[in-house]
């Protein structure tokens, strides 16, 4: 599988580290239901057969986190963008 890094261009997936689903957002630790919210944030993941947005780290290239749109059935990649400011607040 090859991933289209927005900076480096198309590169082999071995140059990247995989983190996982880009959707979960860190809950507010001060909220009254924080314990339940953190349980879901840490442990619960969707397992879609189809499109998913996920975080990859281009450690062997530009050293940036990117968000990749991938189809889990075909590994077809629909696109990739830098993660900072979009998917994960602490990813850049």
């Amino acid at each position, binding site marked *: 599988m090859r991933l289209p890094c927005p*900076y480096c*261009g198309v590169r082999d997936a071995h140059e990247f580290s995989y983190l996982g689903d880009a959707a979960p957002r860190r809950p507010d630790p001060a909220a009254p239901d924080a314990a339940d919210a953190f349980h879901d944030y840490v442990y619960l993941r969707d397992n879609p057969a189809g499109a998913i947005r996920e975080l990859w780290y281009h450690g062997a290239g530009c050293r*940036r986190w990117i968000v990749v749109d991938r189809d889990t059935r075909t590994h077809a990649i629909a696109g990739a963008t830098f993660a900072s400011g979009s998917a994960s607040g602490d990813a850049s």
Partner: protein
Amino acid sequence: MSEILSDLPVTDLLPPGRHGRADGAPGVIAHPLSRLAVATLVACKGAVPRITEAALAAFGVALADAPKVSFTADIAFIGTGPGRWLVTASQAPEALMARLTDAFGDGAALTDQSDANLMLDLYGPAVGETLAKLVPVDLDPSVFRPGDAAATLVALMPLTFWQLNDSPAYRFAIPRSFAPAFLRALASAAASAGLEMAGPARG
């Protein structure tokens, strides 16, 4: 095959001379550059436009925030990541750092890397087939051309390289502690074509 690798201590650099196929002209020439000053330039947050303007004003360089080489006769900026460049110049490291500090001031983090890398030029008729065994980037001229750069892995070693011209010749910045291992990998990959390892030369 290159016999020297069976006896050469793994921590030693490949000695100058001919390695691998001994007859005919060498397929690959490796040329270390000993007098090239190298620095990293990392733009502060939001400062890329400022850095780009300063590069134009101070050096006459149209700095690309991309995996490209932006250069004039005496200085080159090689993109390694968003807002990050490797800068090379044929001068004393202190002189390069002074020029960069004057140009970019507090808009960027500047670090002298002149001792951090083995800078190596690779060229010759078999450089393409040799690098095909080492570099996981497509170097076909339709994809990778003079002025293109890539930060990538060679035999699990992180490095940056860029294409100098369409002969083609490539310049590699290899982290110094990986230099012996890189040169062993190079000697093996180039063995069938013959490798001429040149002595240190002026950058």
